[in-house]
């Protein structure tokens, strides 16, 4: 206690400050350009707290900084800003804010956000970040390419070793993150052992980029075949990560020949280092968990192989035993079939031999019997027919004889009639007469002269007369 000194109470001082501030800034509002960092948003109250900063455009160093908050109207404006621009109100955005200046006796200076210019969308930080990324892509085509929103680097195109066991850890000696990482690895529940080499450096303060790059080079120069390089930075304010947006750091990470796993320890942003690295994780613990999971996956694959081999081996035996058994029963059954078929064949042949032999004899006997009965009947028929023939001929001869004699008699009869007809005796009966001269029968009248004596012979009478006259007779009375 120094009673004689002239002093005032802090509350009096604060009141005076408040008076002056109120006099000068009370009721006044200012449009101010700056970047947002260390932003938090209390959802339940819809309060935004953040630091409003201005950076040197060349060095990226902070040249002005003030706390700010938004609630009520200010929060609504921010909500509108997000809706209009699609840009989340968050760290590393360059914004134009309408603010009032407030001083509170307890809480001190603070800017109160009244409005935000939605047209002023991107913060300068992000512009710089984009510029750095563009430069990385433009100047290192050999190992950095961009496709869509993705960056493809030599590093992130590497394959992780199937097991990550030997690790180069780049972190600060005092980093809580490094401890988290180690602890997580060492206390893994699977009993995996790791070999971790520390490469300490300063991993905060944006001016320490060169040191980080030097450490990365040191890892490379060690010639140790690390399975992975882990870059860890745990804790600290958001502004502490600007180091990881450095061009040279990004370039070194992108071209590094061993896969780099990052666990830079922030929740809300992704640094250029993350974009260039093989496997970015959010925190050191996550980085460790990533490695454990990677190895666990390997072991699970091993166990899967083992399981498959065990199952398949067992199936293998039952399959082979089954195949043997089926061959066995095939052989047994078919051997029996062969014997059975042969037996059947023999029985059949036996039957054929027995039955057909008997039927051959039977058939032969039937043939003989048929022939014998034919022989018994046919000769009798032949003899009978012959006898009939003979009888027939005898009858014929008898009949023909009678006919023959009758015919002969009839031929003779014909001559008898003719001779009777021509007999002179019969002619005289019809009134004809025979003239005889000198007892000679005359048929020529020339020898008869008038006065000759002629004999006229009639059927029953002879007349002797003398010729008195002789004339020619034409005989026409009898012409027919």
């Amino acid at each position, binding site marked *: 206690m120094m009673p004689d000194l002239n002093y005032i109470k802090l509350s009096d001082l604060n009141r005076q400050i408040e008076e002056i501030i109120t006099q000068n800034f009370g009721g006044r509002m200012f449009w101010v350009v700056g970047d947002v960092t260390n932003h938090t948003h209390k959802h339940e109250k819809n309060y935004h707290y953040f630091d409003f900063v201005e950076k040197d455009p060349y060095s990226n160093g902070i040249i002005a900084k003030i706390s700010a908050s938004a609630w009520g109207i200010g929060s609504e404006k921010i909500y509108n800003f997000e809706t209009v621009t699609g840009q989340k109100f968050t760290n590393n955005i360059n914004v134009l804010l309408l603010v009032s200046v407030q001083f509170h006796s307890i809480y001190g200076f603070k800017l109160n956000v009244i409005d935000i210019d939605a047209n002023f969308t991107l913060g300068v930080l992000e512009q710089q970040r984009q510029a750095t990324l563009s430069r990385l892509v433009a100047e290192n085509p050999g190992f950095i390419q961009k496709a869509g929103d993705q960056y493809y680097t030599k590093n992130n195109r590497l394959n992780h070793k199937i097991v990550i066991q030997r690790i180069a850890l780049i972190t600060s000696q005092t980093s809580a993150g490094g401890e988290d990482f180690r602890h997580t690895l060492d206390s893994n529940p699977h009993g995996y052992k790791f070999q971790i080499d520390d490469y300490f450096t300063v991993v905060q303060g944006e001016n320490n980029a060169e040191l980080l790059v030097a450490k990365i080079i040191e890892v490379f120069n060690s010639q140790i075949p690390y399975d992975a390089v882990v870059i860890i930075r745990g804790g600290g304010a958001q502004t502490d990560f600007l180091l990881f947006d450095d061009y040279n750091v990004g370039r070194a990470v992108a071209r590094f020949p061993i896969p780099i796993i990052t666990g830079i320890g922030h929740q809300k942003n992704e640094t250029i280092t993350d974009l260039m690295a093989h496997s970015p994780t959010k925190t050191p613990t996550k980085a460790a968990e990533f490695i454990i999971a990677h190895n666990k996956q390997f072991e699970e694959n091993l166990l899967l192989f083992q399981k498959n081999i065990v199952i398949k081996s067992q199936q293998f035996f039952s399959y082979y035993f089954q195949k043997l058994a089926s061959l066995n029963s095939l052989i047994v059954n078919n051997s029996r079939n062969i014997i059975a078929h042969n037996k059947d064949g023999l029985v059949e042949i036996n039957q054929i031999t027995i039955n057909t032999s008997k039927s051959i004899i039977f058939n032969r006997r039937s043939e003989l019997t048929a022939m014998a009965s034919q022989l018994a009947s046919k000769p009798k028929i032949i003899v009978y027919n012959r006898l009939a023939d003979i009888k027939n001929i*005898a009858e014929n*001869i*008898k009949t023909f004889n009678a006919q023959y*004699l009758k015919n002969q008699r009839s031929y*003779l009869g014909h001559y008898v009639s*003719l*001779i009777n007809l*021509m007999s*002179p005796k019969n002619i005289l009966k019809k009134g004809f007469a025979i003239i005889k001269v000198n007892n000679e029968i005359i*048929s020529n009248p020339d020898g008869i002269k008038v006065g000759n004596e002629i004999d006229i012979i009639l059927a029953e009478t002879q007349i002797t007369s003398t010729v008195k006259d002789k004339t020619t007779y034409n005989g026409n009375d009898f012409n027919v």
Partner: protein
Amino acid sequence: METILTYEAAYNELAQIAREIENESVSVDVLAEKVKRASELIVFCQTKLKSTETEVNKIIAQMEGSKPK
């Protein structure tokens, strides 16, 4: 004369006479002679026929008599 005469010859001569008589180239005086000859031949043939018939009938009668029945 008739003893050496066959039925065949007699019949042929008879047929010859019949043909001559039919031709009427025979004079009445010859006719009477031919008719006389023809009459003789007819009697011969009839006698021969009769005797043959008798003989044949006898043979047939024997045949039928001896025929095995």
